[in-house]
């Protein structure tokens, strides 16, 4: 029995680890969307973060530089999106798609010489506690610092949006850019900041994959996680805490699917691998059915272009 309990502890720990990139990317995108901007380039920004983090790790041999660099690269690539949508007033959906296509191509191009290089071990915290405490050890301890940050992020985001003045500004810009502008808020500037912040978080999410979760560079290694993160924001009806819950559910499906494959469950591998995607669709249907509930929380100006006559 005690064996079972410790196994469940390890299982929960691995579910948490697999949900980290989703939490990071979705929390970042949530802020962006709360300011009224729909950035569909999450997948592209994540993959750019993944390759820049890994490349910087190989070149500098310094994990701190790699992590910070991946966030910066996310910022830089999201700046393209920001410039196009905010300064040149382009369509958010099309620009985000272009960002994803561009990002996947660019990452594969940059990553050409990094395929097959083994990654470096990322330091984990409290590793002794992980072994000594049954059940809770593998859940609470022995993770990377990025994981602890990711699990704090939804609460920080919630606090930021609900309790701080800046958070109020972001929500005002997303819900009514015209009145916010009339109040003297620089709508475009706020949106730029939210886009760049989203880029940084997506970059970090990518670096988590290539430096910590599966420490190596594989082409297209984000494998649709960016899109699942986008779905999570809708799933969470733009509430940060629900992002955390949603990410854990999706992480759970991913891990469960791997375990079912490992113990030789009699369902073809491909059907199990399709589970997270099918689950996303089912969840979206359940969440979206009540259009009033969705509308209540959706940032009113989401995806709309704001232009102020000078």
């Amino acid at each position, binding site marked *: 029995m005690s064996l079972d309990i410790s196994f469940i502890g390890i299982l929960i720990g691995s579910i948490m680890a697999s949900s980290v990139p989703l939490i990071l990317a979705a929390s970042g995108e949530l802020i962006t969307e709360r300011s009224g901007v729909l950035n569909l380039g999450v997948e592209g920004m994540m993959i750019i973060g993944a390759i820049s983090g890994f490349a910087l790790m190989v070149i500098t041999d310094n994990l701190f530089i790699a992590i910070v660099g991946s966030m910066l690269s996310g910022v830089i690539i999201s700046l393209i999106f920001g410039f196009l949508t905010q300064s040149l007033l382009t369509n958010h959906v099309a620009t985000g798609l*272009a960002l994803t296509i561009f990002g996947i191509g*660019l990452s594969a191009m940059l990553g050409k010489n990094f395929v097959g290089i083994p990654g470096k071990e990322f330091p984990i915290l409290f590793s002794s506690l992980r072994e000594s405490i049954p059940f809770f050890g593998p859940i609470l301890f022995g993770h990377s610092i990025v994981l602890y940050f990711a699990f704090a992020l939804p609460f920080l985001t919630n606090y930021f949006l609900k309790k701080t003045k800046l958070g109020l500004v972001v929500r005002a810009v997303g819900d009514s850019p015209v009145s916010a502008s009339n109040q003297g808020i620089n709508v475009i500037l706020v949106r730029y900041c939210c886009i760049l912040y989203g880029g940084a978080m997506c970059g970090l999410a990518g670096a988590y994959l290539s430096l910590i979760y599966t420490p190596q560079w594989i082409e297209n290694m984000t494998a649709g996680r960016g*899109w699942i993160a986008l*779905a999570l924001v*809708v799933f969470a009806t733009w509430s940060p805490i629900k992002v955390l819950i949603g990410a854990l559910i999706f992480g759970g499906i991913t891990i469960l699917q791997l375990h079912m494959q490992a113990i030789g469950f009699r369902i073809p591998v491909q059907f199990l*691998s399709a589970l997270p*995607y099918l689950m996303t669709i089912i969840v*979206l*249907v359940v969440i979206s059915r009540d259009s009033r509930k969705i509308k209540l929380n959706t940032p009113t100006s989401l995806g709309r272009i704001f232009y102020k*006559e000078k």
Partner: protein
Amino acid sequence: MIKIEKRNDVPMALYFFTPFIAIILTILGGGIIFYILGFNPIEALKFYFITPISNLYGLSELLLKATPLCLIAIGLSFCFKSNNWNIGAEGQLTFGAIVGGGVALLFYNQEGFYILPLVILAGAIGGMIFALIPAVLKTYFNTNEILVSLMLVYVSKLLLDYLVVGPWSNPEGFNFPETRQFSDSSRMPLLFEGLRIHAGIFLALAAVMLSWFILYKTYLGFQIKVSGLSLKTAKYAGFKGKTMILVVFMISGACAGLAGVGEITGPIGQLHRMISPDYGFTAIIVAFLGRLNPFGIIFASMVVALTYLGAETAQIFLQIPKYTGQVFQGMILFFLLASDYLLFFKIKILSLKKNELRH
């Protein structure tokens, strides 16, 4: 002094001219990237854009790759014109290829003139059914079609993977992840001896003509355009919004399914994992670059097909990684969207002299 003014109406000539600006900027941008990567930009661009189409075989390859892009983009133009964001054409292509391929495999040891039409029809229906999923969920459950259509891409690719390694794999195929070869009656007829260009191009041309007719000469086309411009007006006019969403997704899915079936009955001749180098996603760029106009899309599909060919050529001759193709495709869309700024705003450069004169 630069002054920016909002235009009152979009000049049509400029609307069709800006895609050319985008293409020129993309070529310049590509030159800069090649330079950064350490290649001679002029030489690299020559290998990219001129070498691939400097002989008959290259031109045939260009049309071969432009065919699926054109077909899918024509379908997507119906969705995009009416503000329906179907970005899962890659999945509809895959599912169309699965259904069409399944029919072709039924007849693997038979010959007959009726087989190819059946396979093509099956492919179109497959794509149509697969596109109906996001459409029905959007109309009846208010679900975001972008995410649903995209998630289904992964589902369809996994299904194809399951079929080619599992139940449909070639019994004499030494466990390679591929099906039997289709019989000759399931293959698209080649147009010229020795070239890969096949009769599928006529499907694409027919789709262009038909879409022009529907969009510009029928009531349905009128409804689609009005709904795209203003949903409120469409509602006020009493258009049946739900039916229209279903119809545009069905058209779009059928076109993507046709593109898939064209690939497997044309150059490929069987089912395996890699039936499309992301044609479904790239076609989104084609649709925009062609300004959602049927004839614009023909032109755009050839430009974008050239980025595929150029990437292959540049890889062979200069060892430039082939992913530059996607970088180019992303850049085209970036520059196209950016140049749209010129459509809505007038940029006036006031010379200092004029100002001085006023004083």
